[in-house]
């Protein structure tokens, strides 16, 4: 009678298969390389959205600074690629060959110390995850131990995003300033700009995405996942059940940061540059809307939400650039007012009900009662 959580619930597996079919089979077969690369770009945001499901949807911690982690991850990757692109041979015309072009423009004659380790790919890959996560740990510890939460946390993370943007833009000799780090070409000699590379990178990214989804599902299905939900509802009760609430919040925030950072690094690889425009407030809030549209509790919903909003953005802004902002604004309002559970909620409340009736004719399967636990079922269904 009492369900024993398995490694992965059946619903999750179904949803995963459905998503895999979409991402691995349908999209690559129907889209040309250009559109597929766009999908790859959108999917990098899905990493952030999945992190936000853990942190915001489940844990109730709204971070308006996810761009910081996305950006830090992306910058770590970009620093490695830029160093590779700035070989002495490639930068002969500079006054100091062998350093990134923007440093040369800013009269820097020597590679700064913190850039040095990024000659190593291993170091860069580790830094991609470790630097943003460590930063999240620092910020999270400082805030949650002092019980800063809710609205205040949101505003402070927003301020952090603003600070980091100003800092990156202001220190352009070291960071490339507002232009960002551009013109990235090769990864260990492999041209990442070719169509072939884009295709391979796409599949690498999908693999990473699934790895993150599995990790997120494991977290959600563990007791920790239930504690996060419990904490969102009755923080004091959790505290008086003997848990150190701050530590769980820090964990959720760090996990979200780690996911975002992986997305950022992949973004750099897919798009070929990184700029402070991802670190700021606007992209950070936009990333929240992807999660909200997908359904803030649904891991798979986050992926679909991201894809949907970005598809809408690209197609609407191609034909009606002015309408797009109205559309995006309306989306924010609608998802808050009318569909707080987003796509996953719509699926569960409207589509799934009919499907279930159609298939089972008699009774709904166990677990179709509204509630977050059968969210995975909704996910599975949403995927089909």
């Amino acid at each position, binding site marked *: *009678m*009492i*369900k*024993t*959580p398995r490694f992965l619930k059946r619903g999750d597996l179904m949803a995963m298969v459905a998503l895999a079919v979409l991402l691995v089979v349908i999209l690559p077969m129907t889209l040309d390389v250009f559109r597929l690369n766009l999908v790859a770009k959108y999917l990098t945001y899905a990493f952030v959205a999945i992190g936000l499901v853990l942190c915001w949807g489940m844990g109730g911690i709204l971070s308006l600074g996810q761009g910081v982690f996305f950006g830090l991850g992306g910058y770590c990757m970009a620093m490695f690629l830029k160093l590779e692109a700035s070989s002495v041979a490639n930068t002969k015309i500079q006054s100091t060959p062998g350093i990134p072009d923007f440093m040369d423009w800013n009269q820097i004659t020597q590679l700064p110390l913190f850039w040095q380790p990024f000659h190593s790919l291993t170091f860069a890959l580790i830094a991609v995850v470790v630097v943003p996560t460590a930063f999240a740990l620092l910020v999270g510890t400082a805030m949650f131990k002092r019980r800063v939460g809710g609205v205040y946390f949101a505003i402070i993370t927003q301020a952090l995003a603003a600070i980091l943007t100003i800092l990156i833009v202001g220190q352009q000799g070291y960071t490339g300033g507002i232009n960002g780090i551009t013109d990235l070409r090769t990864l260990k000699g492999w041209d990442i700009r070719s169509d072939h590379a884009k295709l391979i990178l796409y599949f690498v990214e999908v693999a990473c995405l699934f790895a993150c989804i599995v990790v997120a599902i494991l*977290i959600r299905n*563990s*007791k*920790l996942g*239930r*504690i996060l*939900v*419990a904490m969102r*509802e*009755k923080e*004091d*009760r*959790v*505290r*008086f*059940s*003997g*848990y*150190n*609430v701050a*530590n*769980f919040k*820090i*964990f959720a925030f760090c996990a979200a940061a780690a996911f975002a950072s992986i997305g950022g690094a992949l973004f750099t690889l897919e798009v070929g540059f990184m700029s402070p425009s991802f670190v700021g407030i606007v992209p950070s809030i936009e990333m929240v809307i992807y999660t909200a549209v997908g359904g803030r509790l649904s891991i798979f919903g986050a992926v679909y939400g991201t894809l949907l909003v970005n598809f809408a953005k690209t197609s609407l802004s191609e034909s009606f650039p002015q309408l797009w902002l109205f559309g995006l604004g309306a989306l924010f309002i609608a998802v808050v007012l009318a569909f707080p559970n987003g796509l996953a909620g719509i699926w569960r409340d409207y589509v799934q009900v009919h499907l279930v009736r159609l298939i089972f004719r008699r009774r709904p399967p166990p677990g179709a*009662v509204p*509630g*977050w*636990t059968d969210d995975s079922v909704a996910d599975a269904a949403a995927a089909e």
Partner: protein
Amino acid sequence: MAIGFKQREFLLAVEGLTVSFDGFKAVNDLSFYVDENEIRVIIGPNGAGKTTVLDLICGKTEATSGSIQFRGKELTKMNENEIVLAGVGRKFQTPSIYDDLTVFENLEISYPRGRTVWGALAFKRDAAVRERVEAVAEMIFLKDRLDTSAELLSHGQKQWLEIGMLLIQDPDLLMLDEPVAGMSVSERVKTAELLHRIIKDRSVLVIEHDMKFVEDIAHKVTVLHQGQILSEGSMEKVKSDPKVIEVYLGH
């Protein structure tokens, strides 16, 4: 060492406890002692500082001065969760449960294992957990509702669930804030029965208005008034105290 001796004698020793909110002293130089296995009821008019005393003991509110010793540990210097680990359990006035989780999950979260982040990640729902949860569920009359979402429970059932969540922690000191408030008559009877069962083998600190209920369970009664002790002793003694009659029972 005389003080050390005293600490071992009492389960809970509150001494000179004071808290002031912006000049207003909600609790003023309060001292009282609770023995092992004692059931102590705190009564007093509204605003007497009863709930604040519980808040202070469980760490929700920081004391301005004074000390709270629990088994020789100074609680005023500890975090809420450390206080829980030391063996103090607290039930809130309004039922504080997790609406979005099932009854089973509510109880499971309170199961005293896997309370660190990594512990919670590695936590396995094994036979021991299930047995314990089922046993407690039976005690709180919710055995057949384990898979129900907690938000669908009645008010009384929610109160029981929260009591169950405390039971599963197996605290040495159980603090209950108005456990029967807002219950129907039949629920009240059942709750009294439940409380009688669970207060064995542990000390209990109860805030309650229902005098019949108080008389029924209390070993000793403390009457609070304006953050200070007005009277303390057996129910009989307190009832006949003229000061008490004046400020509390009198109206």
